[in-house]
């Protein structure tokens, strides 16, 4: 099966067809996706701003990250779940859409970066000044996730 025929199959699934043919489902799922984006943004920025050195001074990064974690997982589930529904509704449009591929690439990069690099710095239980690596990881994370969100909005404009 080629990649394109897989996308065609996605578009013809019961879920994809149902969302596409409903007047109100797509907009409502978009709203859920946006609210998920807000919570995800908050959970990430809370930790990233602190990593960069602009956030909650005096609070250990490890404790900030622990506080943000349930919101991070919940919002990831919400954005990915709603995003999948939106994707199924217009899979073929996505296949031909450069913004979609940019978004998926940045999303994979952002997730890999969070799991492999950023996670090393979020276990810091101290409150002292951060070294360059930690600050850079916060900045890179902000840039990557901003790119994911911006490219995501771009799908609709293409």
């Amino acid at each position, binding site marked *: 099966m080629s990649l394109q025929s897989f996308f065609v199959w996605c578009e013809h699934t019961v879920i994809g067809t149902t969302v596409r043919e409903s*007047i*109100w489902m797509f*907009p409502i799922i*978009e*709203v859920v996706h*946006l*609210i998920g*984006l*807000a*919570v*995800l*943004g*908050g*959970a*990430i*920025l*809370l930790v990233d*701003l602190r990593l960069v050195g*602009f*956030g*909650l*001074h*005096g*609070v250990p990064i490890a*404790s*900030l990250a622990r*506080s*943000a974690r349930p*919101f991070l997982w919940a919002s990831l589930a919400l954005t990915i779940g709603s995003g999948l529904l939106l994707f199924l509704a217009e899979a073929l449009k996505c296949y031909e859409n450069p913004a979609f591929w940019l978004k998926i690439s940045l999303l994979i990069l952002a997730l890999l970066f969070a799991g492999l690099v950023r996670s090393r710095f979020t276990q810091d239980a101290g409150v002292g000044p951060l070294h360059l690596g930690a600050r850079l990881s916060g900045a890179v994370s902000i840039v990557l*996730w*901003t790119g994911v*969100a*911006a490219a995501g*909005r*771009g799908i609709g*404009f293409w």
Partner: protein
Amino acid sequence: MFIVQAAEWLEATWVSVAIRESIWVYPVVESIHVVTIALFLGLTAAMDARLLGAALRETPVGVVMANLLPWIRIGFAVMVVTGLLLFAGTPVRFMTNIFFQVKLGLLALAGLNVWLFHYRLYPTVHEWGAAARPPRHARLAGAASLLLWTLAVATGRLIAYNWFE
């Protein structure tokens, strides 16, 4: 109606025409508006979660707010400027859109909630802010903030649709 006339006047100005006719202004401004939701509503939600006693329970409310408010204010400023630009592009369509009308009402209520919180509750934050679960009025303000700003974002997204026209 006066408001529609004002919108028609605005729509005829060169600023409005420029925004409407450019192929890139609208997508760029709207993308900034959307991405800034993550900064503004994201950190507002974090602050509200602290007021509700649902997150950052060991950190006093005053400390959380002192650190997050500058970012929330920056986010709010960007939301307002980009929002006004989007509005200025097609003001008549916005003013006659039910979701935009509801959104304006929600923004007014959210603003009232901010005002009440800052002048009635925040001045005494050193007395109650250290509690893991803040007092009832503070929790109420946090819940109202979360609900109103979330609905403002939701109705904002729906402006793109005109189900009731």
